[in-house]
């Protein structure tokens, strides 16, 4: 009897200590393969990135090859090329107020298309970028910088406008595309509060002119990512840029949905920790591409350069 009782308790302990996670089978796979592109252009260049959809459980993406790209300006062809890579760059003098059309096909015959134009540009009226350096503690030699960016511009009246602000450090060690972009933004600005995107750790700041249509507007934003950490009590002057982009509605919606999508999607790529499925409700990313996914959009841009000297406190 005692032996039986012991066996029962052993069984209970085994069951209790059994793994609480297990692989399950829900038929998810959608084998229908489609293409996606992220293609933006401004006054003098076009930059594109192409991808193919793959099943959610796949670890690898199929390699794209023999992508046939055609680009036309008001129905006049300006580019017809074939590439075997995901990345494509094209130098060209794009004009405002003119519709550009892109078509991309792959070996399967499916054709992605998109149409876009460059919005009217906007001038920065004034801009400032300040840094403050705070040590972790009095006797620590490391600290962190906080920064405040202020940018003033005039919004064109009687039209709907959308903007993107990008702030980044300039580091000679890197090519311009891999500058250190600032993030971890916070702001009490009513426009940004209304947009509600700062909750989702956006890489850039984007907003519409709903609250200041046709007016001069000053926008302030803080970032705790302001440049490199100072260390050993030394903070070298930093070179940084503020870029103000005038973007289309498609571009704005794409940024908005993508930011929320990325924040909310389950992020386990083998990382440690508890893998909750979603941070918030899942959301599909906005697309203005026919027969596929992604974005084709133009933008105007203006940049201000700063040399930053941290203020210690």
């Amino acid at each position: 009897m005692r032996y039986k009782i012991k066996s029962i308790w052993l069984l209970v302990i085994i069951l209790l200590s059994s793994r609480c996670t297990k692989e399950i089978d829900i038929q998810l796979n959608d084998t229908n393969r489609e293409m996606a592109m992220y293609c933006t252009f401004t006054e003098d260049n076009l930059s594109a990135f192409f991808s193919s959809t793959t099943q959610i459980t796949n670890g690898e993406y199929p390699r794209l090859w023999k992508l046939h790209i055609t680009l036309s300006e008001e129905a006049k062809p300006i580019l017809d090329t074939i590439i075997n890579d995901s990345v494509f760059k094209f130098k060209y003098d794009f004009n405002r107020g003119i519709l550009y059309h892109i078509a991309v096909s792959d070996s399967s015959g499916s054709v992605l298309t998109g149409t876009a134009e460059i919005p009217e540009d906007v001038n920065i009226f004034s801009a400032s970028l300040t840094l403050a350096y705070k040590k972790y503690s009095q006797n620590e030699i490391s600290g962190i910088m906080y920064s405040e960016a202020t940018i003033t511009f005039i919004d064109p009246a009687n039209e709907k406008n959308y903007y993107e602000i990008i702030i980044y450090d300039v580091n000679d060690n890197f090519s311009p595309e891999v500058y250190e972009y600032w993030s971890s933004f916070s702001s009490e600005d009513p426009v940004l509060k209304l947009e509600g995107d700062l909750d989702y750790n956006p890489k850039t700041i984007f907003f519409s002119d709903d609250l200041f249509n046709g007016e001069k507007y000053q926008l302030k934003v803080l970032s705790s990512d302001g440049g490199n950490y100072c260390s050993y009590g030394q903070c070298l002057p930093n070179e940084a840029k503020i870029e103000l982009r005038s973007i289309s509605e498609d571009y704005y919606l794409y940024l908005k949905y993508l930011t929320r999508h990325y924040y909310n999607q389950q992020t386990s790529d083998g990382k440690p920790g508890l893998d909750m499925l979603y941070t918030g409700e899942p959301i599909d990313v906005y697309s203005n591409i026919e027969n596929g996914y992604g974005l084709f959009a133009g933008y105007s841009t203006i940049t201000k350069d700063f040399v930053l000297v941290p203020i210690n406190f």
Partner: protein
Amino acid sequence: MHNFIFKIFTCLCSLLLSITGFTQNKVIVRGTIEDLNTGERLIGVNVYNEESNTGSASNKFGFYSIYLTKTDSVTILFSYVGYNSQKLKLAIKQDTVVNISLLPNLEIAEVQVISAKKIETKPEMSKVDLSIKDIRMLPTAIGETDVLKAYQLMPGIQGGLEGSSGLYVRGGSPDQNLFLLDDVPLYNVSHMGGFVSVFDISVLKKVDFYKGGYPARYGGKLSSIVDIRLKDGNIKKIGGEYSLGTVLTKIMLEGPISKDKSSFILSVRRCNFDLLTFAQSKLFPDPLNPNDYWGYNFYDLNLKLNYKVTNKDRLFVSSYVGNDNLKFITKEARNSSESLQYSVDERLRWGNKMFSTRWNHIYSNALFHNISLSYSQYKFKTSYDYQSEDLLADENSEQEKFIFLSGIKDLNIKIDYEFLLKKNIIRTGIASTFHNYTPTYTSLINTFSNPILGDTIIEAPIVNTKLYTVESSAYFELQSEITDKLQTNIGTFLSLYNTMDKAYFIPQPRILFIYNFIPSCSFKASFCKMQQYTHLLTNSGAGLPTDLWIPSTSNIKPEISNQIAVGLVHTSEKNIEISFESYYKKFEDLIEYKAGTILFQDAEDFANKIELGGTGSSKGIELLIQKKSGIFSWWIAYTLSKSERRFENLNNGKSFPFKYDRLHDISLVGNWIIKPGIKFSATWVYTSGYAITLPTKKYQNPIMGNTNSDDPNYPYTIIDVHIYNGKNRYRMPSYHRLDIGFQFSKHINKGERTWSLGVYNVYNKQNAYFVYFKQSSPKMIMQEDGSLIQVRDKSLKLYQMTLMPIFPYCSYSLSF
């Protein structure tokens, strides 16, 4: 449309009222029914005339009336679960008052209640009947019987996720349930994320659970009414109950303040989980952070005072206070360079407070009133307190205090009247509630002390949104026995709701017909319109109680539901009740978070984060076969249902399944009294998996930022973009579980002791709590030369997390 409904309603009322006067040779027997030992007024006691096969039940004041033909001899049977039935022979020539006291019976016979008023003759529909006695027998997860968990075993009522709070009634969401504790609404009714409700079963007298066919006296929520009455307290002698379980400790005391005049009942319940984690942190401290500690507890306190002013007047004072506390504490920890000492105190706290006074008055044997004044509060608070001190420079320190708070406070006055007429009961009343909402309050203060710069205080602007509304209502309800075969309950609930800038007036008709077409079988049909002015925004992710209650405003309209239900009920010769119901419910003006929205940050902007104007529908059939009497009582419940929602800006404007839509829901429950003092109970549940959104495909997309590739041709961060192909399109694996429990009771000197033992999830079914994608773990592969290499499969797999595997429980209780 409203005019038309109102005219029909007026005509019906006139017709029914005219019927009431024609029975001149009839008399009424009336009186109160009490527990002989405690003096507790008993609600829902069956009163049955054996000669005419007619009956009634005692009302919420413990008062009954039965309508009889003048005769020389009539036998009236009084029966109630857990009490000896009592037969009374009377010669009835005129209206008579007979007060009854029933004796509790603790032996086997206790369950052999004659179900005098059979289900087919009860003037109600879609009401779930479970006695407190039956509920106490059911097995549980943590040794504490829970009233809401028991109701989840009935058709049409579902729990959410294992461990998540809330009841889902006929396709409704958890905020659409009205929980009334002695007439006062409570907002959050769950502890431990849903494992235990706030209702301590040892102080409960009666629970009425309506999932449809709502009487007109109730209003304010769309999907269910749960009317819970607390015991009044033993008016004759001191008694009580003490219970010690694996997780819970509780004590209940009741007794007279002045014998036969006034009484009290007090119960305190506490979850001991924090004591266990505290002991663990002391006995087995984390070597890196020996002063780290986390703990969770909750407590409930119920107090009720009852004062019999005269034979016709009673005063009641009720109070409930309950809180959940979750804390993470780090004391005197040091950073890696030992230069900084810091402490963190992080807490989450949420709970209800309720206070009410009531005055019951009996004007005559036919007219009652109840006046109540009450206050109710729900509050959710999270706080973060960080303090650091520089060990190398004493004056240098930092302190950060953060508070987030959300809540609602109600002040309510309510007057109800009940008239008992010969074949009718008229109920009417008015009520008014002042709501004070605080959707969000945040405060953040940073203080830096520096020997050079002095103190620097950085105070973020306090966000304190407050909203005030007034909700007033009036109702009229006429319960009639039109003929021997036809009963009705018709009424309307009128509500007027004033926000700061808008008023809503919504009449809500309620119609119920019961046609007893053959003696053991009835057809029932009902129509109810309900409205709801208070909405809950809750995170659907982790299941923490981050509930924001928000009011209807000029932009956010009240939610409305219209429900129609038909059903057949039958009691067999072997006293087995069979109930079949079918319903269709339509929702209007639902709200939902906008796609991609998260709750917590910037919660003051809630109005910008919600989708308005949602619609929904829910339909289903429910079957309940139940044997309530005998040494083996059991029920089988089955629900087949479908529930959908539609919002213009969600899922491309297409309908999508409600998250907790479950096609099949089955419960099998058995309670067996093996012999006096030994009871066995088992439950088995099966439900289809709930709806979930999962991605099917993905593509790559570059975003601004530092590159995550070594390839210079990829100067971006490349992320995966998921394609979801529809909201709630997929289903979690189905859920099933078997629980068993034994109760061993024994009379001892001063009372009765009971050991409760059982096992939750007997066969250790690993039910999915949530699912997630993850790369499989790397594998070590041996090469030809004998060396091992690590190989990682980059493909993702879908995993499920189980919250509750097999779980034994044990508790001890002593009642005296």
